[in-house]
């Protein structure tokens, strides 16, 4: 593997890791809120979360590009705070990936949370547990496996991302040139041997991750039926 390819792998793992961390932190309360509420606002939020599943990545990428551009409100604010341009940066990739992979984290968590009986939370409340304590001591252990599934899907999906990245990140080595983009370059320039290395690597990685995830079918819990 060449140094440039290693760079791309390192960048991909850094992007997927950062994105997954942020997704777990944001996705958990969002999924909890969605799982316990009914009404128009939660339905709208749920639809927004699911959008990346059906929209072409280019649509998402296009709007993100407009939003992150230096002359946009967000882009300008970012530039004033950090002194750096947001579009075509690693940070832009993280923002795009968080939005793009959001449903892969929120949906399994929301489904698992919805299966935790409210009656158990009532029991915990009468035993002195505050809502946060109820989540930590009852919901989290009952949904342990779904947390793992959500993190793995979020990570794997970010690794496999291409369209959004190309739209908002471009192809800057060491900054935004992730494995899927590097692969695209090889194919464009008809370097099929090198392309095989990256494409095959992604296939093996994804298969291995999903295999390990699905093999680890432990005792049935609230997050399984």
């Amino acid at each position, binding site marked *: 593997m060449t140094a440039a390819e290693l760079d791309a792998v390192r960048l991909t793992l850094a992007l997927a890791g950062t994105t997954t961390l942020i997704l777990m932190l944001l996705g958990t309360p969002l999924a909890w809120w969605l799982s316990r509420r009914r009404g128009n606002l939660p339905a709208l939020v749920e639809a927004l979360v699911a959008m990346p599943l059906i929209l072409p990545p280019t649509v998402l990428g296009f709007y993100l590009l407009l939003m992150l551009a230096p002359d946009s409100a967000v882009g300008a604010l970012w530039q004033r705070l950090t002194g750096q341009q947001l579009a075509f940066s690693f940070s832009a990739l993280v923002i795009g990936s968080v939005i793009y992979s959001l449903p892969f984290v929120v949906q399994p968590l929301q489904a698992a949370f919805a299966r935790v009986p409210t*009656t*158990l939370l*009532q*029991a*915990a*409340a*009468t*035993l*002195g*547990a*505050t809502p946060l*304590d109820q989540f930590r*001591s*009852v919901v989290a*252990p*009952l949904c342990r496996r779904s947390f793992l599934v959500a993190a793995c899907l979020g990570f794997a999906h970010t690794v496999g991302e291409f369209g959004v990245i190309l739209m908002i990140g471009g192809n800057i080595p060491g900054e935004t040139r992730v494995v899927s983009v590097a692969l695209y370059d090889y194919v464009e320039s008809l370097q099929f041997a090198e392309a095989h290395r990256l494409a095959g690597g992604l296939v093996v990685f994804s298969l291995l991750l999903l295999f390990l995830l699905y093999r680890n079918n432990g005792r049935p*819990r*609230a997050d399984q039926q």
Partner: protein
Amino acid sequence: MSALDLALRCAGADGFALDITERLSLTGVTAVFGASGSGKTTLLECVAGLRAPEPGSRIAFDDETWVDTGHSLPPWRRGIGYVFQDARLFPHLDVRGNLTYGQRRKVSAKGPTLAQVCAWLGLQDLLHRAPDTLSAGQRQRVSMGRALLAAPRLLLLDEPLANLDGDSRRQCLAALRHAIAASRIPALYVSHDAEEVSHLADRLLILAAGRVTEHGSMLDLSSRIDSALAKDEQAAAIVHCQLAAHDSPFGLSELHCEGNSLWVNHLPGEIGSLHRLRIPARDVSLCRELPRDTSILNILPVQLDEIEPGDAPRLLVRLRAGEQFLLARITRKSATALQLKVGDKLFAQIKSTALLTETAEPA
């Protein structure tokens, strides 16, 4: 002595509205009795804070306000213990983890120890079991232990025996009664089973369609023929008596009640200890003369105190024995044949097997 002040209005699940203004003195067990849909569980959930009553409602425990206009203390700060009909054990924790869940979160330094609670409820051998391996009766005992270990100031029990039957129900009832008495924590006990209520309750709150119809001591209400309890097929009077002697050759114990002897199955208890007997009305029959040559051991001289009016084929009569009362359910035909009237001196025959004995706190 604690008290619970209620001024509650709350829409129930199936159409009725709970509407209660009552002050409950909390000593021992107060049974909340009524038919299904009378608002018993709604009442308990409002007291626990699991259900919000209508604006304008007020709940106060001693001088601590739990619910008032614009204020509602959350369940986790009320210091209660709730035993649900469906146990609600945490499936990811073993029995020990369930038992200590509330104990680890309690604010009060008081409360029973794990060892005490295990002894009261017979949980020693279950500590490492997973909840889904327990029988229904075991689950309810663990649920009770979990509530007690949280050191609550008030226990709320919502038909904990509803899913049990036969021996398992009797054993669980005995364990719960023992644990409540040993912990000395006042309890509200919801039930629609008159027999269960008379085994447990010191006081009684009877609900019908969301309103309180009767409220008072178990002893008073259980001897009234116009009470909702009397309508039940299981109607029974409760009498207090003292253990006088053990008759080991025949396997019986002798109790004294208002100067008369009553024989019951052998009672493990000390001579002189106080007991509460439940005498079902349907197991009491009446005679004008003292019966001779009868297999029935227990015959008390009584005076007829009250006859249920109406023209149903079977009626309830109240009998005075000294300072206490018995109930008898007899046919209208017999009442007419014996020409029963208030003030008559009679003899009440009680089938000895019908006497359910239980230790009672000295009154």
